[in-house]
């Protein structure tokens, strides 16, 4: 212990475990980047899932909201978890979400769209892959706000669409996401710099048409 420091229990891990629990402290350490880039990305994706869960739980209030407002709500949630995160920053063009970690020398870029048509989603994805992502990093995310019924069928269709070589997305393969809900999956693309770039696809379920009042 260094001299002249107030070495009380508030300086120890026990104080933090009492506040956040052991897993909570591990998560914060991961956000700080102590356990490397994979663990940082994993906790970021978990936090992103929680932000999306919050949006989904309030679906009835988002029916007329634009994608910018919903994206800002996700960004605010991440900011509350102390990420260095910006919405609509200028990063080789205007990305929707940018999370940076200077110590890990990492940038995670997210593109968000209300699902209207597959070509529109594809355009967003192409922007992310071939414009915003320099290739120095290899992970990003596509967030699709889905107001339609049967999001599962839409997700299946989107996966097939991604593999269409005519759409110039250079998709190498589709993989299941083992950590999120069933409305997440990964697509791996060949980035122009030669690396494999992984996109995590997030389907935000905002369909709201209650039938409890139907006669």
């Amino acid at each position, binding site marked *: *212990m*260094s001299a002249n*420091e*107030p*070495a*009380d*229990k*508030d*300086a*120890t*891990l*026990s*104080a*933090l*475990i*009492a*506040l*956040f629990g*052991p*897993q909570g*402290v*591990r998560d*914060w*350490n991961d*956000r*700080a*980047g*102590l*356990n490397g880039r994979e663990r940082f990305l994993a906790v970021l994706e978990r936090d992103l899932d929680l932000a999306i869960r919050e949006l989904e739980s309030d679906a009835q209030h988002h029916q007329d909201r634009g994608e910018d407002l919903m994206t800002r709500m996700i960004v605010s949630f991440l*900011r509350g978890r*102390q*990420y*260095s*995160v*910006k919405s609509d920053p*200028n990063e080789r*063009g205007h990305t929707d979400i940018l999370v*940076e*970690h*200077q*110590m890990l020398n990492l940038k995670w870029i997210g593109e968000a769209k209300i699902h209207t048509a597959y070509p529109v989603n594809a355009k967003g994805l192409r922007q992310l892959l071939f414009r915003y992502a320099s290739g120095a990093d290899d992970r990003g995310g596509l967030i699709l706000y889905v107001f339609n019924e049967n999001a599962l069928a839409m997700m299946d269709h989107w996966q097939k669409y991604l593999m269409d070589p005519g759409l110039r997305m250079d998709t190498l393969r589709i993989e299941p996401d083992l950590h999120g809900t069933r409305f997440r999956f990964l697509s791996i693309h060949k980035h122009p710099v030669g690396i494999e770039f992984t996109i995590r696809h997030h389907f935000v379920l905002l369909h709201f048409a209650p039938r409890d009042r139907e006669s």
Partner: protein
Amino acid sequence: MEPSDAELLDRWQKGSREAGNELVERHYESLERFFVNKVPSGIGDLVHETFQAFLESRDWMADPGRFRSYLFSAAYNVLRGQFREKGRRGNEVDLENVTMKALDPGPRSILAEREERRLLLEGLRSIPVADQVLLELYYWESLKVAEIAKVLDIPSGTVKARLHRARQRLKAITNTLTAAPNVLSSTLTDLDAWARQCRREHDIERRIRKDWPGEPVPEALRLVRAVVAKGTRKGADYITIPLMIQWLNEIENRPADAHVGDSRMIAEIFKSATYLQQIGLLAQYFELTREDASSVILDDDLVDEALSKGELFDPDTGEHIEDWSSHVVIFYMATEALRELLRER
């Protein structure tokens, strides 16, 4: 190779929005710094107005290589206009004589907590605005004498003479602002170093504010402010959460025992420190303190395993540590970026 200002300007003129964005991005910080010690708020608007005035004036077309001179010239005019509009009832303000302190009293920089830097910033605001602009362009923006001459539309010889005069005025004013002129003597003889520190402070503050838009003083900035105000280079290797609470109490004029043991405060500081690690200002460490007062720094993965399994073994002796989490102190080290703002002591 990066395109020059003149090349970007040319492409912007020909309709490339991207080139325009890049140019604005490249010079935004400099313009912010220009306005930050002179106006209380609305800096973003003034920067925007400057770019607009710059493009409209088209003076720069005669010599696009002198981009920065023309840009600061536009900023200087916008500043004049601002003074005319606000509080002066449309009258021209004589910037050769009036001071910022007279126009707009009150401290500007959040981070300038250290006595000598606060005094220098205050000193700058206490000399005529024209002198202030001259010194800031020379020391903060590293503009050459000929470039400043272009900005202020005066001969280079006059710039040199005025620089000399402005330094003398700053020295005289700052000495009257403090009861301990020796605090300032080293800083005044090395204005270059001081200018570098001002730029670093500004860059850090700007970085944090960009991540926390809309918050008057983000928590993380309060924490950095406390560390910069109370920390020293020597003590920068061992900053604990209770020490940060103590520093925050001191700079925010609370009793010494305020928030001691306050779990909400501990949580807030820990969380803000997480963010400060992400932006490269702090680094977090764990230290096992033993009963015999010896200690050892623990690897991060060892701590992670202990948090996962609920037990810790001494990495040197292999001994099982009872009540292990009470024996592991979290401390932070200032990184080089933050260390540069701390005093030598």
